[in-house]
């Protein structure tokens, strides 16, 4: 996995290669760009750092899962990441609490509330799945972008070599294949939604298909070629910087799509907070000294 630090090393090698060449003509206007071509990527999100966050979110999903689920992502071996329902949550129900005869206003209110509470938990589960999915999308974008930049750098290096040796080797044109430029964010994966009531959360995975590492996001055919001239360092640098700009544009487009997904979900949650997170039932606001007199509480079957 390419890291931002790898690119800093690579641009240093490019600068060194230019400085060590014998150039008779075709000098760049600003050859120092060989040594700074990737500076914009010096502290971008590092794909290697996403795993701890997506793993933690998977644990959260496992604890909140109202049903078995498929994350729509795969592990490092390419196997789908799935999980089971957490039956511990079933304790918040009539059957779970084993109360057969408690009736009345308080009982009805409590059990009605408990169903809404569980729906809220299902919405929170779906939101955690969305967050994890979009983090995977970010990791995928940056994985592909940094790989593309590394490829650009390596091919620029080879083009410099060829330009330097041109009269000796007759080196031809160099062509590289860029993934992130070809296709950035692909089509939908369904987010697991068991029990969720907020429809936007249910459909929110639309727009991103990602794997745990992002490596298999960009299938064959979702790439774009970039050719390098080998005639002189000026043209090599121009092609390199053109490739960098294209990667920058592609990353911006991808993150715009991710931002749109985030905005949609944030608005959905903000607009339906009580459905996302149930307020506590009236029962919990009764003072300790008044609990026995709370309306309806005294009608357990057979006791009154």
């Amino acid at each position, binding site marked *: 996995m390419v890291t931002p630090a790898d690119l800093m090393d690579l641009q240093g090698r490019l600068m060194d290669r230019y400085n060590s060449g014998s150039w008779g003509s075709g000098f760049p206007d600003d050859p120092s760009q060989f040594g700074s071509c990737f500076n914009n990527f010096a502290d971008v999100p590092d794909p290697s750092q996403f795993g701890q966050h997506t793993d933690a979110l998977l644990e959260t999903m496992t604890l909140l899962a109202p049903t078995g689920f498929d994350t729509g992502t795969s592990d490092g071996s390419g196997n789908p990441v799935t999980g089971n329902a957490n039956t511990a949550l079933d304790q918040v129900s009539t059957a779970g609490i084993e109360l057969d005869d408690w009736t009345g206003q308080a009982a009805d209110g409590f059990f009605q509330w408990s169903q809404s509470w569980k729906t809220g938990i299902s919405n929170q589960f779906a939101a955690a799945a969305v967050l994890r999915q979009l983090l995977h999308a970010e990791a995928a974008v940056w994985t592909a972008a940094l790989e593309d930049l590394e490829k650009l750098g390596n091919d620029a290096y080879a083009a410099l070599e060829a330009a330097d040796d041109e009269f000796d080797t007759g080196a031809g044109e160099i062509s590289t294949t860029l993934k992130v430029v070809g296709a950035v964010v692909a089509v939908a994966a369904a987010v697991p939604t068991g029990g969720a009531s907020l429809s936007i959360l249910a459909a929110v995975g639309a727009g991103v298909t990602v794997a745990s590492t992002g490596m298999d996001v960009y299938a064959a055919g979702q790439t774009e070629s970039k050719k390098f001239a080998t005639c002189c360092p000026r043209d090599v640098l121009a092609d390199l910087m053109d490739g960098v700009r294209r990667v920058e544009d592609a990353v*911006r487009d991808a993150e715009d799509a991710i931002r749109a997904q985030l905005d949609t979900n944030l608005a959905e*949650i903000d607009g339906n907070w009580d459905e996302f997170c149930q307020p506590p039932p009236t029962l919990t606001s009764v003072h300790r000294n008044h609990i026995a007199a*709370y309306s309806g509480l005294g009608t357990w079957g057979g006791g009154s």
Partner: protein
Amino acid sequence: MSEALGVEVGRVWRAGAKKLPEVGDTLETAKRGVSTSLVDLLSRSSGVGTDVSSRFDELRGLISRALEDSEQAIRDCGTALVWAAEDYELTDQAARDAYEREKQRID
């Protein structure tokens, strides 16, 4: 009649003292996955791309807040049920005896 009441009140106590707190513990653990800020992971100084770090972290924060509130609600419910059970066991000696037996069984 009081015997049945005592058993039922004992179950209310069990729900409030045991089951709902267990669910609260589950949510407390689930919160860990959304406890760490995502800003450092996603921000960048160069302006390349579209910085989505604040939006990501807002979503994380909302989930964390919802889990916190949901946990507190279920724990408060548990407390209220325990209070109710404790009050009812005082109202009737036979119910009280049955309640204590149910509690012993649960403990």
